[in-house]
């Protein structure tokens, strides 16, 4: 069946569709959000934000991974990352139906599963209708294409943020101009007046949250705090920078990390492994298995771009720099991993190639060369967190066991 235009755009209907799709949601997973107070707050805030996006009165923008949400918050627009939402749906049995519907609609199975599932969820009319679509090219070609397709699908306007690959005066200036132009376009499309005071506040919240985040990272550098490390990644993945709630979450996490660090047995030594690549939910079998044997440090949360603080005097310029730093790039990738590897005194690296992620596949091969040259023990795993046709734990486990023996 081919269906490319949403006819029923009522968010209440879509909310009911979403509930039906998640009817058999793995409830056990929900209860295992984690023992940390920060994790619970983050989970509640996420749930609240998602619920709000299904309300007809809300202004909703689809915004991809690493989109600078700080430019949306001054307009009280709620950004929805449909790729992250797909990860949420991945915990329910419905994910298989969503993937099937994409095949019925001629989307190739070679495309990254995150994109395929997002497409399937939209086809099943389980996302809330957006008011506007922000197209950013940060993670990949497919996500940018998907955003455009969604604009066509819901018949809604899109605004493209074209992020260059290399950091220089020209690319920064190009992005600054785009931000200013996008702000005007948002005003025009939503009839919401830009409020400079709110924007300043948003930048302030973004930095406050980041400072707690960075201080927490420093604690994980010194102490074995696996749950904290995991939560840092979860926060990074939700891209909450600019929300007041993000300050609360990061502050709580820092306080918890500080308290936990005081209670640790300093004689307890665990091998440390750097996890490079996308992260599945914490009950995914690879993670559960590894966590019994080693301490995992999640690189994504430690990316230089993610630690970058915004300049209150020149917010657009600093947003531009951060945006470019988020682009995949071999030199930055290698530098960042080397830095983290040395600072955290790692014992090995696990590189995860998520099915269909061309950027990471290309970069990880180069990382292998780097690891070999520097006598770093590494393991490369091909995995798919959503489509079981592309992955079997039994095969991966043999390789993990061999890697654990080596380190």
């Amino acid at each position, binding site marked *: 069946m081919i269906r490319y235009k949403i006819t029923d755009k009522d968010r209440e209907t879509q909310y009911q569709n979403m509930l039906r799709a998640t009817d058999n949601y793995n409830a056990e997973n929900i209860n295992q959000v984690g023992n940390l107070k920060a994790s619970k707050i983050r989970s509640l805030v996420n749930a609240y934000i998602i619920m709000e996006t299904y309300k007809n009165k809300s202004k909703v923008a689809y915004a991809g991974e690493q989109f600078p949400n700080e430019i949306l918050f001054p307009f009280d627009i709620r950004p929805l990352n449909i790729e992250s939402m797909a990860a949420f749906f991945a915990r329910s049995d419905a994910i298989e139906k969503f993937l099937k519907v994409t095949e019925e609609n001629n989307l190739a199975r070679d495309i990254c599963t995150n994109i395929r599932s997002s497409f399937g969820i939209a086809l099943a009319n389980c996302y809330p209708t957006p008011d506007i679509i922000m197209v950013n090219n940060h993670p990949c070609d497919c996500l940018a294409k998907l955003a455009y397709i969604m604009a066509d699908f819901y018949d809604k306007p899109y605004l493209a943020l074209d992020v260059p690959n290399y950091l220089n005066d020209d690319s920064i200036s*190009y992005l600054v101009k785009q931000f200013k132009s996008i702000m005007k376009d948002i005003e025009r499309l939503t009839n919401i007046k830009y409020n400079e005071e709110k924007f300043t506040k948003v930048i302030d919240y973004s930095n406050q949250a980041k400072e707690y985040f960075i201080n927490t990272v420093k604690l994980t550098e010194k102490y074995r705090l696996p749950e904290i490390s995991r939560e840092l990644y979860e926060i990074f993945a939700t891209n909450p920078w600019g929300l007041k709630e993000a300050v609360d979450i990061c502050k709580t996490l820092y306080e918890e990390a500080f308290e936990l660090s005081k209670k640790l047995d300093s004689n307890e030594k665990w091998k440390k492994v750097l996890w490079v690549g996308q992260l599945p939910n914490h009950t995914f079998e690879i993670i559960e298995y590894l966590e019994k044997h080693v301490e995992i440090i999640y690189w994504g949360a430690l990316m230089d771009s993610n630690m970058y603080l915004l300049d209150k005097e020149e917010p657009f310029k600093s947003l531009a720099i951060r945006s470019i730093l988020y682009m995949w790039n071999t030199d930055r990738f290698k530098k960042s991993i080397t830095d983290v590897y040395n600072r955290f005194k790692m014992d090995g690296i696990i590189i995860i190639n998520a099915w269909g992620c061309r950027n990471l596949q*290309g970069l990880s091969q180069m990382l292998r060369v780097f690891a070999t040259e520097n006598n770093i023990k590494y393991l490369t795993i091909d995995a798919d967190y959503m489509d079981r046709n592309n992955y079997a734990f039994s095969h991966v486990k043999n390789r993990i066991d061999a890697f654990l023996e080596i380190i």
Partner: protein
Amino acid sequence: MRDILESIVNMNEDRINSLKRINKPRMGWISIYTPEEILYAAGITTFRITGERGINTTDANALLSNNYCSYVLSCLSEGIDGVYDFAEGVIFVDACDMRKRLYEAWTRNLKLNYSFFIELPRDINKLSREYYKLQLHNLRKSLETHFDLKISEENLSDAIKTFNKSRKLLQQMYELRKSDFPLISGNDAINIVKASTCGLREEFNEKMDILLKKIEDAQIRTGKLKKHRVMMCGSYFDNSDIIDVIEKTGAILVCEDISNGIKYFEGQINENNEPIDAIADYYLDKATCARMLDINKRFEHLYKLIQEYNVDSVIYFSLKFCDTNLMDYPIIRKKLNEKGIPVLFIEGEQHMTNIESIKTRIQTFLETRMY
């Protein structure tokens, strides 16, 4: 007519030997968004890296990934095998994720005297035009520095005229394929377009002048049996076996909306505008490649060609793992079906290994349409 046609086709087949004989700096390119005119104006011979000789991609797989588009892997294989060691360098364009990684793998692992990476916007607007123009000015400056020369406005204008002439000649050749009884086969057409990218620009233009005159003289022939007209669109494509399969069914390939077809030579650069501005506008205005965001623009362009060439069936060819074309396909198919145009989707590698299964699918698709 056949002699001159074969002479042009041979230009493509003999491209490496010809390029080696040229006593000028030579520069390879991988995306049709490369502004060849600027390089030509600097006295550089430009040629497309085709990946034709990169059949064994084992080493390239190790530097990138098995799950990469075979055109990208084959191009890198050619680099690894030293096929282009005679060249001064390669111009890369941000034409897709895999080509970005190709740029990094190539420049880090293989010795190049010169390379340049052009950032290409996905969405065409005033700001992205300005930025692309800036990229082209930077390329000009970079070439001037590297080769210690000055690229004058006159050099640029002359280059634009030369390339516009090639475009016009190719457009005239394709125009003749709109006839009910075209004399140029699909394989010949693709080989001619590829010949235009083999570095012998003036020779190509001269030979094309002769060929077109000969075709025009011969084109007055008519016949009784009008053939089923097929269009090819999608990824990088130059697989002669697939075209043979299509044409052996009794159908004829009349148009290729691909980078080895119309997408390479359509339109003209405005010779009256400031040269760099005109070059930038030309490349961005023909933004109908799958890499660009606007699928609707791509579809409208495709549909216009279908009407102009009186196409009966469309074959959408995507290289395996060519994400941008794979993402566009469901939408393009839907829109074509709404217009009553049937589409066959073929996914393959540049150096096809499963031609038999593809043959069966093409035969079944076309025969059910034709008889």
